[in-house]
């Protein structure tokens, strides 16, 4: 009883700050908000907004693109981050320098990343296009070609967020017990066997946590898409956060935007549940 009493102020604060905004969003999703005479009027529309989501072509495209984006970007970041962490963990000279160099992109604001890459990728004036021309290649329309625009945004996101994975993996690698490796060396294990039979199993919890963190964050991507492509060309790079932004803010459809946001929260929740189930299955195996 006393334990609950002492915990209650923190719990109340946590619930107020964490749950109330979500509850407000859920409630808003059942209303239409109009403004007249300087005042808002809320009219109850039931599940009409949720029903409309099914027919919203932009929302459908954004869900599909976000899935592709999240999986592609997170896979790239995990692989690269792990490889860099492995390399860095074996470096003995200049470790601080290499670490600082590798984490630089994650320190930059997304807005700067977007502006920087938009300039670099511009086929008319960008440095990458000019490099292509120098070696006799035609500049590629990275962001304007619907077939590769999403891939280009994924590449930028991989560049931006790989350091995040790198840092977590490096911390995980450096905390692994040395004696296991020494025993393996005595037993004659080669580098590949060490990686496959020791490092990866021991790193598994870190890998799962990093994957879930990055997947959730990748699902919320906004700034890079907003700056690089604005969701285009067509719907090629439309992602859910950007669609919600347009519906909620640009079009001022607060109720519909809220319903969209709730649907996305639900999707993320499903993803997390699936990831947790997968983790349990792997641990059981």
């Amino acid at each position, binding site marked *: 009883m006393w334990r609950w009493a002492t915990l209650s102020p923190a719990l109340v604060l946590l619930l107020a700050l964490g749950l109330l905004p979500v509850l407000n969003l859920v409630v808003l999703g059942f209303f239409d908000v109009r*403004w007249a005479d300087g005042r808002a009027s809320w009219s109850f529309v039931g599940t009409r907004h949720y029903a409309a989501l099914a027919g919203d072509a932009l929302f459908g495209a954004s869900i599909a693109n976000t899935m592709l984006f999240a999986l592609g970007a997170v896979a790239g970041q995990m692989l690269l981050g792990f490889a860099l962490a492995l390399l860095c963990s074996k470096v003995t000279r200049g470790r601080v320098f290499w670490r600082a160099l590798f984490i630089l992109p994650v320190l930059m604001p997304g807005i700067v990343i977007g502006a920087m890459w938009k300039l670099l990728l511009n086929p008319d004036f960008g440095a990458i296009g000019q490099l292509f021309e120098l070696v006799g290649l035609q500049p590629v329309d990275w962001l304007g070609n619907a077939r590769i625009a999403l891939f280009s945004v994924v590449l930028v996101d991989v560049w931006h967020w790989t350091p995040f994975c790198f840092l977590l993996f490096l911390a995980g690698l450096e905390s692994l017990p040395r004696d296991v490796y020494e025993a393996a060396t005595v037993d004659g294990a080669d580098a590949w066997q060490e990686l496959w039979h020791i490092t990866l199993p021991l790193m598994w919890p870190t890998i799962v946590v990093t994957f879930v963190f990055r997947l959730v964050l990748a699902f919320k991507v906004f700034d890079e898409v907003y700056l690089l492509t604005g969701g285009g*060309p067509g719907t090629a790079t439309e992602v859910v956060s950007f669609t919600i932004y347009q519906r909620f803010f640009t079009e001022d459809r607060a109720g519909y935007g809220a319903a969209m946001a709730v649907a996305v929260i639900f999707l993320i929740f499903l993803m997390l549940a699936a990831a947790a189930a997968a983790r349990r299955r792997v641990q059981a195996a």
Partner: protein
Amino acid sequence: MASNNVPLGRRMVLGAGGVLAAGLTRAAFAQGGPQARVAPITIVINQSPWLDSFRRSVEQYERETGAKVDLDVQPFAGSLEKQRNSVRASRGTADLLVMNSGWFAEMYFGGFVEPIHAIEPGFRLDPEVYTLGDTIYFDADTRTMTPRGRLMALPIAPIVPLTYYRADLYREAGIEGAPLTFAQLEANARRLHRPPRMVGIVQRGARGPHTVAFDFYPYLYGHGGSIFRNQAENDYTVTLNAAEGRTALDYYIRLARECGHPRTAALDQAEVIQNVVTGRAAHMLTVVAAWSQMDDRDRSAVVDKIEFAPTPALPGRPTAPGLGHFVGGVARNIPDDRKRATVQFLAWFQTKDAQIALARHGGMPVHAAAYRDPIAEDRRYRWMKPLAESLRHAVNIYQFPEASEVIAVLELGLNRAIAGEITSVVALNDMARQIHTVMAARGYRTGQVEPLR
């Protein structure tokens, strides 16, 4: 449009009133230490090519009157959000709302703007101030913007697109005269198209808050098309997918593909302008506000090479640029002294002298007399006469608060058509259907024309 339609007698009376109002404003300032009596005001305004000229005008106002004005400068979309947040609060922080054509209807309909005469009953609008499609008025009863309604705002920046073309290339190619018809524009663009070094025309095709749709309006209305049948009469029948709309969109796409920029579907305004100032494009249709970048020796490779013309139209039809202008309205939820101070600024800003000074600062005047001033003959201001001609025919595209929803539909549909994802027929029919859904859901008198085949 401009108040040039007002009968002369009424003009004279209003003109005298305007002069009187301006005089009274000055007299009020001159009499008793304006700092003591005029409340400081905050203007929420967006970052744009004409901001610097407006800022210099504000500084001039402060010098002349001693009043204090703060500029709260935001990005375009951020400006709308800032204004929404302020006017929806119980007490606003923004006094003068500099509202774009994409959202002033939302502010009028929402009751967020105080009519000018409710603040200063004696205020007189200078009759030579452009009323920009009468968008400074709002009749709450009929939900229309006509002079029968109340004066809600004053024009701040008369933004319409103009045709920018390379006069030096015209001379070299022996092309005479400005491209005033669509046929002339296309022929000239094809003639000067030398990819990849030079494209005949560079057009905006990217999706944005009000991007490709805004650049498409002069093509649509110049071909005799429209989005709605007659907004002024509350007839919101969707006419976008009539034959004229198809001709206009096919023309836009044909220019892009055959004599335009290869990345049209991905180009935003900055990139369009960049192509012209770096000498890579022979034509563009873009807002007049970009004029100052053309002759900027630090930024432009085409100094003194660009000429300006009204956007093209079909033979026998006037130019029909869409209004992308800004008007300034006084927020309703601010104290009375700040409301009065804001109206005093507007009264000063609309005067002929202030408007000529604005032009000299690099801005676009909203006063017709400024376009008759000797400054309009100065080569540096060679855009003024085409602009004055354009303003006479400019079209107010939206008169309803759900404009942003319609714009979003247009942005996506046009972008997809230009990118080649869908045909013009599919795009137009699809956009028309969606716009009809938006208008029907909001209870407007709407309908559809026969879909294109």
